């Protein structure tokens, strides 16, 4: 630690990839015992900067220091040895081996023996988990634990080599409010021990809740570093994006404004149930309406959406589109009848990551367009070009590989894919997960515009603020059942109250 309490300092870091400048002269300093938030849109350079700190990439220019000593790792291993630990957004744990084995993965085996000692590993794990979550069992398989607790294991693994600095990349991306509170408690404890923590997040409310200082990256440059107490959220968002944002519900033109919700539901679900996931679900969505399905992670909303669409088979109940019963378990029929599902995990189940923008956008439509057994590529090209323009998808060309685009653009392609099938009903699951503030606002505007054009939208999201600001009606799901129905204008707190079971709706 230097005299000023700085444990890590990066100076004038620059990095390019061929013709693309990812980072330009970035300065960042992290002090002992602070939580330093890093904010920025997708493509701003956060991941690149962290990769450089963690030894996965080398900077083209610039230097780094740890405790005043030069730090220039040639590999992630050297970074770990030097005291920098990072927890990436993607899980790095192996589900089929134990918690202790995962945690000790990066530790050298003691004494040069080549036999592993389960007892020693369990003891190590127990020691590291003591402050984090003592209910985790070192000998249990990681796969037996849910995402939130697996994340605690990830943190323990990162702490195994007693780092000076811990970097967390979007740690709250897929965990619920309870787990988040728990995580923050852990971070505060680590902070009081003198650890320097870099916290990357899109969620400005979290930044204000947990961070001491915040740095903003925009287009590869450092815009500024401020103590959190000295900058308000509006300004912070503006610094990130470079322009003012509309973030209040009023800005979206109010519920069901334009065409007015028509009678007769576009989507009607009756008594839908699936063992282990949800039971007794009745809901309806009208044309020109956004119905928000709020709840905590694990409430069964994704399973419900998939069952309505036909990706999963429900045990009981019916789904009707415009009054007509939809056969269960037939995604192809659902698409043909005008129902579309935008899944929550675009990488795993949504997009074809190795294929081009055009191939992705055209995929569900292939069965609908063109004559006969041949594919009409020109039509597909036109379709892709049309939707790229409509949704403002930024891509060098429609032949670009989707994996090369930013998260926000990938999400837009996913939505375009399904819009191209001209659905009457759209189910969107976590439409803005893992994307930056600017793209998030664009997608919100898009959903509202679609609603105004007459689409019936079922919005599933763990972002309570998002649900509350976009929906004309809000349904709350908890442990597989619908527990509340809230009108537009309800607050996020109300939603969470019902979703977490803190409040129970009065009968009838």
């Amino acid at each position, binding site marked *: 630690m230097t005299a000023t309490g700085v444990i890590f300092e990066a100076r004038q870091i620059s990095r390019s990839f061929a*013709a693309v400048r990812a980072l330009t002269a970035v300065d960042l300093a992290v002090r002992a015992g602070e939580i330093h938030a890093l904010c920025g849109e997708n493509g701003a350079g956060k991941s690149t900067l962290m990769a450089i700190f963690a030894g996965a990439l080398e900077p083209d220019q610039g230097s780094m220091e740890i405790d005043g000593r030069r730090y220039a790792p040639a590999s992630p291993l050297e970074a770990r040895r030097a005291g920098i630990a990072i927890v990436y957004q993607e899980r790095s744990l192996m589900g089929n081996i134990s918690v202790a084995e995962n945690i000790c993965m990066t530790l050298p085996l003691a004494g040069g023996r080549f036999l592993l000692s389960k007892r020693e590993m369990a003891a190590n794990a127990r020691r590291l988990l003591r402050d984090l979550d003592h209910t985790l069992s070192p000998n249990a398989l990681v796969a037996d634990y849910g995402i939130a607790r697996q994340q605690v294991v990830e943190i323990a693994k990162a702490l195994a080599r007693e780092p000076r600095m811990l970097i967390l990349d979007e740690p709250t991306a897929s965990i619920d409010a309870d787990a988040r509170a728990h995580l923050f408690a852990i971070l505060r404890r680590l902070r009081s021990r003198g650890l320097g923590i870099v916290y990357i997040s899109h969620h400005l409310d979290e930044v204000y809740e947990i961070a001491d200082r915040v740095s903003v990256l925009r287009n590869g440059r450092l815009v500024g570093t401020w103590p959190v107490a000295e900058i308000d959220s509006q300004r912070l968002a503006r610094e990130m994006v470079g322009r003012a944002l509309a973030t209040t519900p009023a800005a979206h033109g109010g519920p069901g404004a334009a065409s007015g919700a028509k009678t007769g539901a576009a989507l009607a679900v009756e008594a839908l149930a699936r063992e282990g996931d949800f039971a007794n679900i009745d809901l309806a969505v009208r044309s020109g309406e956004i119905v928000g399905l709020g709840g905590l992670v694990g409430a069964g909303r994704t399973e419900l959406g998939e069952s309505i669409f036909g*990706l999963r088979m429900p045990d009981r109940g019916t789904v009707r589109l415009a009054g007509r019963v939809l056969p269960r378990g037939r995604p192809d029929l659902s698409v043909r009848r005008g129902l579309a599902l935008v899944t929550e995990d675009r990488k795993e189940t949504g997009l*074809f990551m190795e294929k081009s923008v055009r191939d992705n956008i055209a*995929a569900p439509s292939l069965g609908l367009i063109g004559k006969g*057994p041949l594919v009409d590529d020109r039509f597909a090209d036109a379709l892709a070009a049309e939707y790229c323009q409509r949704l403002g998808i930024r891509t060098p060309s429609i032949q670009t590989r989707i994996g*090369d685009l930013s998260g926000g653009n990938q999400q837009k392609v996913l939505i375009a894919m399904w819009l191209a099938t001209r659905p009457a009903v759209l189910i969107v699951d976590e439409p803005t997960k893992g994307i930056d503030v600017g793209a998030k606002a664009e997608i919100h505007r898009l959903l509202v515009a679609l609603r105004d054009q007459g689409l019936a939208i079922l919005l599933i999201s763990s972002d309570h603020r998002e649900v509350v600001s976009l929906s004309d009606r809000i349904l709350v799901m908890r442990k597989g059942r619908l527990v509340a129905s809230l009108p537009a204008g309800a607050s996020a707190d109300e939603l969470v109250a019902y979703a977490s079971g803190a409040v129970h709706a009065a009968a009838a």
Partner: protein
Amino acid sequence: MDAEERVAAGAVGIRGAWLVRLLRVLLVQREAALVVFIAIIGAVMTWLTPTFLTVGNLEAVGLGLSSDGVIAIGMTFLLAAGLFDLSVGSVLAFGGITAGFFDVHGIPAALAIVIALLLSGGIGLLNGLLVTKARINCFIETLGMLSILEGIVLLIGGGFGISNLSPAFDVIGQGQVGTVQYPILITIGLAIVGDFLMRKSRLARYAYYVGGNAKAARLTGINVDRVVLFGFFLTALLAGFSGIVETARFGSASVSVGANTPLNVIAEVVIGGAALSGGSGTVLGSLLGVLLLQLILNALNLLGVATYWQPVAAGIVLISAVGFDTLTSRIDFQKLGMRR
């Protein structure tokens, strides 16, 4: 030139700019690179021995190409969908033996051939059903089928195979148009149709999607099982057909053909640009891969190398081709900063 090429061109100097362009085309377009290699081998062989560029030799190469080539069309579809079929060699033998069996037992040649084709297709359907409905891993399932058919072929054909086929039967294999023999024409014809369909037909497009991300494919409404079923059906059908043509060519059905076939064909299709994980590959590329391998084997023959070296050569070519692929992708990124 686009931005990336400009940067790379700057790295090698202005005079090297066209070279950069060429390199990029070669590295990215597998077919182009294959044509270059084939041309090089052709040139070298022509220089080394006068026998290479003779009608007789080229015919031999063409015939060798026709056997693997037909099967490669089906295998291209399967690999695009992320699967493969190890039983093709046995199906090839099965097709020939069955057709021969019916032929010598008095059934008209054409009918015998049709029956053999139907049976081969049926095997393909069985493969497909076991993989899709019973969810058996395609490696295990086709490996098992390979063994089963090997036995059945021996049961039908006995130790020596079946000979004395009717003249009508032999026509397919031995007839010719001008100087070009039927098998070669059939292969080229099927390849042209196959390439067109792989590029343009909906089912083939679905196969690429399935190979790219089977879960997402299912979500977009693609009937994944149907695509897989068709892939196995087509491959086995073509394998059986290839066996029938082989039998017609030699005038007798052998029980021991096809041992190296699955390995060779998969290697040829991968050389042609298909990834084992699925989602890519073209019939044109596969046929070029077949031609490349056949030329190498032919070269070994002409140069008097013992036939035992042929599987060695095939293996080396396969490893080199895939190795070349992965190495060049890494070189691109680090040295020149080019993206694929």
